[in-house]
């Protein structure tokens, strides 16, 4: 039997180094496409980014200038509406699944959330077209918000559930033992303890739907003019980028690159802003 007091063999140490090296390589390979995409976007898009671009609506083709102001604001409006639908419903169902649900109904809700997560975004768009656009007889920012909200719900629900389940039961018992009513204990103690993870889940969902184009094609529809009314078609960055990119005009191609860069920047800014706001008032956590 090999003696345990002998030093580890060279072959074993070599294998160890190989695996450490391979996992480091995998990590680098993950960062590489991200860095490459961002670098290329900056390279192609930053040239067309100017004050005009950010504040003007599109010009007819052939005329220079113009911008994507309507699309930038439109995206923000649709994402705002989508979040207003997706975040409360997602967190609410996550809380139900983790804290209050028992038995078969919870399994059904969980299964439904997972299936909803896997539905292609274009199918969600068509469904919302049938459910919201057709009865209303027009495209609208609101229907775009509904589509994105529906897509946000499963991610937020499942993440909230996972994060809540990670809160140790001793915390819940401590809260109940103080005579706090259960709904308050769940919201202001358990959820608060899990808040970092829950917020991360919400931001992940937000970042994912921010770039979705397909569901907006049949709902928000896009708009060449300035519009911020929820009941009318509205421009959105992904739609605008798509329309410009497949067009045959160079000027529009350049603007599409700039639009893509702006979209990424907006997502990063939104996510960072949430992080900053929620980490303010953090206390020392070490003895």
């Amino acid at each position: 039997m090999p003696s345990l007091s002998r030093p580890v063999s060279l072959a074993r140490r070599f294998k160890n180094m190989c695996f450490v090296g391979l996992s480091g390589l995998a990590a680098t390979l993950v960062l590489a496409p991200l860095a490459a995409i961002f670098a290329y976007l900056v390279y192609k898009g930053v040239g067309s980014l100017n004050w005009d671009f950010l504040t003007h609506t599109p010009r007819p083709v052939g005329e220079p200038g113009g911008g994507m102001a309507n699309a930038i604001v439109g995206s923000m409006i649709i994402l705002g509406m989508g979040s207003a639908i997706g975040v409360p419903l997602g967190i609410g169902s996550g809380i139900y699944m983790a804290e209050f649900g028992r038995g078969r109904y919870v399994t059904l809700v969980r299964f439904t959330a997972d299936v909803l997560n896997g539905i292609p975004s274009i199918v969600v768009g068509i469904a919302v077209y049938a459910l919201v656009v057709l009865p209303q007889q027009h495209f609208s920012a609101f229907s775009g918000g509904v589509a994105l909200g529906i897509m946000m719900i499963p991610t937020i629900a499942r993440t909230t559930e996972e994060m809540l389940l990670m809160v140790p039961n001793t915390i819940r018992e401590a809260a109940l033992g103080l005579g706090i009513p259960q709904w308050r204990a769940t919201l202001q103690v358990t959820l608060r303890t899990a808040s970092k993870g829950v917020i991360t889940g919400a931001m992940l969902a937000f970042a994912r739907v921010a770039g979705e184009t397909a569901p907006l094609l049949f709902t928000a529809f896009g708009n060449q003019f300035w519009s911020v009314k929820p009941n009318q078609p509205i421009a959105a960055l992904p739609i605008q980028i798509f329309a410009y990119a497949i067009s045959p005009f160079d000027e529009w191609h350049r603007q599409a690159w700039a639009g893509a860069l702006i979209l990424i920047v907006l997502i990063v800014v939104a996510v960072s802003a949430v992080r900053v706001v929620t980490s303010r008032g953090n206390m020392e956590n070490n003895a």
Partner: protein
Amino acid sequence: MGVGIEVKDLNAWFAKAQVLKDVSIKVGANAVTAVIGPSGCGKSTFIRCLNRMHETIPEARLTGSVRVGEMDVYEPGIIAADVRRRIGMVFQKPNPFPTMSIYDNVSAGLRLNGYNKRHELDAAVEGSLRMAALWDEVKDVLKKKSGSSLSGGQQQRLCIARALAVQPELLLMDEPCSALDPISTGKIEELIFQLKAEYTVVIVTHNMQQAARVADQTGFFLMGKLIEFDKTEKIFTTPTDKRTEDYITGRFG
């Protein structure tokens, strides 16, 4: 002021397993009562039946009556949260709320029950921390440090302060010192001794010496039954039941 407890014919189950059998006991007000017994004898379940924490476990049930002061705790129509507000509980492992500061931890019971006046909360926080002998150690960092940044003994005293802040009449302690070092244990035992002037304390402990040190009365549980309940001195010097004698002399346990 503390209240007395009267328990009659308490039976408790976890699903089909019966963990408490026909327990009847009268606990005196403004006294410290210890509950001792070997592991699995039902002592933790017993005190969790007093403040209706037993029912928070799925498939748990019980029969019998528990009177805390004049209140029948299990009377239909009585809300569990109201019962728990009158009865404080300190758990085996210190469990401060990790995302809240020391101040927010101690005031949690008041804030989350709707009391929001700043000066009232300040007074309650200071009073409870003083009573828990923690005030001097944390008064400068009340809002700067989180509850979980304290040492184990400090965390447990924080939990005691949190329980005291809602001014319960009865304090239940489930092996509060079992996770602590001897110095912290000593501080908490001293605290329990001082608390009995204003509160009724029921403390579960597997440490018989601790029971002998702090308790006026002691109850010995074995396999879900209350075997003997009497003055601490009598239990530990001249117990009536042979099983009690076997346990305290270390023949089993």
